[in-house]
């Protein structure tokens, strides 16, 4: 062994030992309690401390992720893989019961349907416009259409349509409630995704006053109340109101409303379809509020698609689970063959 080798081995070995000891000692001496997720994320992150994420080092990012100030894919170095891991660590599985809530708009009066009483100029923000003499809209309950809700939605779930009305993309909406909070006219509510019928008007004015300013407002005719087979339509302050406990998404009210103030996703309307499992007990026939089910006892029953309003009463009643609720389009197909 020559001198270079000796020097090298001695010094490197010495340094290795020294720093090993040092770190071992330090890790013992200065151990600190932390959020276990923090450690886990720290573990998952590359540990390069390069700062590319914009946070002071990996632990900075980890802290930010834990406190919700950074996305799980905040580390550009680690890429997808690390992101997945962190998502797992953070992904406290949505364990809560109840269905996902989404935002629904309670106004249908866009540019084409509702009139303005004045011409507004200035900051294009609904809250700001509202503060200027109550905003330019003829209806003081209706959507102002400056899209503040679309702007604040953190998930890009709201877009403004041609008619100056916001449209919620149900798939993107997370029910965070930002839009509910921000709309100066309180036009959003959060309802379960399965709720499909909504009154798109908040005007508490009398019918004739509503008519003056908007062609799709609720005029208080109460036709919907009469039409609803389930008594799910209520009235309050000159305004129809869906009782979501009772509503079965049958959408009869939507069909009947003379102004179109009640809305739903019509293509989503469901129809009952009776499968081979039917034993012909006739229970469904009895509960159907519109007499849409035909058939004799002990024989396969059939749904009259024309009449069926998709309330799913029959499906609930059927002891054999032989009734499926299918989307209208599919139901037609199912009926013909």
């Amino acid at each position, binding site marked *: 062994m020559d001198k270079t080798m000796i020097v090298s081995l001695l010094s490197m070995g010495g340094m*290795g030992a020294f*720093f*090993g000891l040092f*770190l*071992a000692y330090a*890790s013992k001496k200065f151990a600190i309690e932390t959020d276990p997720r923090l450690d886990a994320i720290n*573990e998952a*992150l*590359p*540990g*390069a401390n*390069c700062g*590319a994420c914009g946070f002071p080092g990996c632990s900075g990012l980890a802290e930010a992720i834990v406190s919700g100030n950074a996305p799980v894919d905040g580390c*550009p*170095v*680690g*890429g997808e*893989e*690390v992101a997945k891991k962190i998502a797992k660590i953070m992904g406290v599985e949505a364990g809560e019961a109840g269905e996902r809530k989404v935002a629904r708009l309670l106004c249908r009066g866009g540019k084409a349907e509702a009139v303005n009483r004045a011409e507004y100029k200035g900051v294009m923000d609904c809250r700001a416009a509202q503060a200027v003499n109550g905003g330019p809209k003829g209806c003081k309950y209706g959507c102002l259409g400056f899209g503040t809700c679309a702007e604040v939605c953190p998930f890009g779930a709201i877009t403004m349509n041609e008619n100056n009305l916001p449209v919620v993309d149900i798939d993107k909406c997370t029910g965070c409630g930002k839009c509910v909070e921000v709309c100066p006219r309180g036009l959003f509510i959060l309802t379960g995704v399965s709720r499909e019928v909504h009154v798109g008007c908040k005007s508490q004015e009398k019918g004739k006053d509503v008519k003056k300013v908007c062609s799709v407002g609720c005029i208080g005719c109460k036709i919907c109340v009469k039409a609803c087979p389930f008594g799910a339509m209520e009235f309050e302050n000159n305004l129809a109101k869906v009782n979501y406990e009772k509503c079965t998404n049958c959408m009869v009210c939507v069909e009947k409303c003379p102004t179109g103030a009640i809305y739903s996703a019509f293509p989503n309307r469901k129809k009952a379809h009776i499968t081979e499992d039917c034993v012909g007990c006739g229970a469904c026939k009895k509960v159907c509020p519109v007499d849409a089910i035909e058939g004799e006892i002990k024989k396969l029953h059939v749904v009259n698609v024309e009449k069926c309003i998709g309330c799913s009463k029959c499906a609930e009643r059927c002891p054999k689970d032989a009734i499926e609720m299918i989307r209208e389009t599919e139901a037609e197909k199912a009926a013909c063959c």
Partner: protein
Amino acid sequence: MKIWKDFIKGLWEENPTFRLLIGMCPVLAVTNAAINGVAMGLATLFVLVCSSTIISLIKNLIPSKVRIPCYIVVIATFVTIADLVLAAYFPDIHAVLGLFVPLIVVNCLILGRAEAFASKNTVTRSFFDALGMGLGFTWALTFLSIIREVLGMGSIFGFRVLGEWFTPFLIFVLPPGAFITLGIIVGLMNTFTRKTA
């Protein structure tokens, strides 16, 4: 297939220079001439591949508390080797790259890959990941340095490619040119990929 993906992603999708923007110091510093860009790229490639492979090999032996010092030692070792070899056999290039060869030690790219990939994956995958990243880094450096050399000196690898009519824009071989050129390239790449995506 997986290996292919490991390899290919560094070239474009996760290109360390244009996409992840890590290990920027050498990218900016040595790309004033094409030859430097290539040399730096290759030197980094060498260190990256060697250290990723070795680290992946010994990953199970290393206690997590001392992993960073261990990685650093491994990396620094390869860097020193690269440095000595360059000095011995390519003295001219060594002279130009100067300080930036030793700085490969602290190039975020290398430690980043060591931590993010090599310490968790098999040797083969780590090798290809490092190879892809290293090549991605190399082509990025080469590309950038060619642009800068053409604009700044009118030449590529020292050969004059633009005629006498061309007055070189000296700024492109000076520090501001490095930032601006890279900024514009990154911007253009964003425009480009945004459209296709």
